[in-house]
């Protein structure tokens, strides 16, 4: 899912799109039409340009997975629990989900805690190491 984020020089950015007319950002990328019903753009997709999201936000909520989920999640063997956080981005005024970087548990987190975007390994197979965006707690 390389087109969902960039990680050049270790700087991880979520890649979405944004309406030129009303300024609404979208993640994942929206290429169809601006979805703001009050927006006067042509709504044919021409109003949507690539957009790089801000990289810091605060935890809206969080949870973990203690049981192996079904495919298409690719679980490690043996299964290792993972944490998912919903993070509120102040700039974009929206909440974006992501796993939390490995090594953190729910006991380390709190609603309102500042986090930043990081790169994490989702799973490995014989072909490659598959990376994904993740949230990492940071000092306020």
């Amino acid at each position: 899912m390389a087109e969902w984020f960039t990680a050049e020089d270790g700087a991880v950015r979520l890649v979405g799109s944004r309406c030129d007319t009303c300024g609404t950002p979208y993640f994942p990328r929206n290429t169809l039409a601006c979805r703001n019903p009050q927006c006067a753009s042509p709504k044919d997709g021409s109003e949507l340009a690539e957009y790089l999201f801000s990289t810091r936000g605060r935890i809206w909520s969080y949870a973990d997975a203690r049981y192996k989920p079904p495919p298409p999640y690719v679980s490690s063997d043996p299964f290792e629990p993972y944490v998912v956080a919903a993070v509120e981005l102040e700039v974009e005024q929206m909440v974006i989900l992501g796993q939390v970087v490995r090594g953190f548990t729910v006991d380390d987190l709190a609603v309102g805690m500042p986090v930043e975007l990081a790169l994490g390994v989702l799973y490995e197979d014989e072909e490659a190491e598959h990376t994904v965006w993740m949230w990492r707690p940071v000092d306020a």
Partner: protein
Amino acid sequence: MPDTNDRDIAVLGAGMHQWGKWGRNFVEYGLVAARAALADAGVDHRDVGYIAGADTIRNGYPGFVSGATFAQALGWSGARISSSYAACASGAQAIANARAQILAGLTDVALVVGADAAPKGFFQPVGGERRDDPDWLRFHLLGATNPIYFALYARRRMALHGATLDDFAAVKVKNAKHGLNNPYARYRKEVSAEEVAASAVVSDPLRLLDICATSDGGAALVLTSMEYARRHGIADPVRVRALSTVTPTFPKTVLDLPDFATDSAVAVEPPPRTFRSAIAHAAYEEAGIGPADLSFAEVYDLSTALELDWYEDIGLCETGGAEDLLRSGATTLGGRVPVNPSGGLSCFGEAIPAQAIAQICELTWQLRGRAEGRQVDDALAGIAVNQGLFGHGSAIIATR
């Protein structure tokens, strides 16, 4: 409250197949439920002018075209037909189709049927590798199962409103007690707070007994015009007063399955009501009654914590007041406004296309005063609400 409405339709019959893990085909559950509803109504299926099926996606083509599947099982009768899929609101969409046909004068009698044979364990996306399907992707990229979303809501309640694990457990204890005497419930066993606390954590802060199971089950209704009900000798039937299937309003600022992100509120202020409360609000507007008029409610308790969110969304209390309402006993049978007298999903589990129909079966039995062992005192008005994937949800208000 106003006691009539020119958009009322009558519920003449309600029927279910007991929920559980029966290992049989969904058609059988639907047929049993349909036959029970027709018998309850005293209507021959050849007199049904419209058959509305609520679809299941897990049973191949017969599930995708459940209207025809149930019609065939009943014996082709030449009725008009529809099949509806709207995740957890599928049953409500089927009811909505039937209601529209009746109100348009196209038929006097409609049969609504939904049934499912749900697999054990986590729900998962339909098969195949589909990298443009958000439901497939949320599993693949995030491992965001349904319980993860339920746990996000639960944690948020704890942080914002001071909900505790004991509160969540109290919802389970209550609903388990409510369902004890419901012959259609899958689980009919008392549960203690200690048992909830001792059950395994599935997705912190939720435990196994906080999360509803997947089930097999079926439910059906016979709906008619008020005029037909009177001709049929039923002067004062239970009636559907309102049926809301409204979508969210942009920007939707609460994550919903299978979202990766909410809408942004950069360009437009968030609407005054969240999606769940908007669903209920539209039904109240249509029925001309409010939360204070309710005798009871059936809400979609996918998790114990989610039931608390619903108390606020359907207006039983102010935002942040759900824990106090629960602790006061108001939502327990015998209280001011019992919630999930049927036992809810806690006792039934999810049989997705049947659930919204099953809720109306319970509303019907309660409003008739025939919900033996779980009857709400002097039940005059009830609401049933649910929320499904991708912005589908429903609220239905019935009165007697």
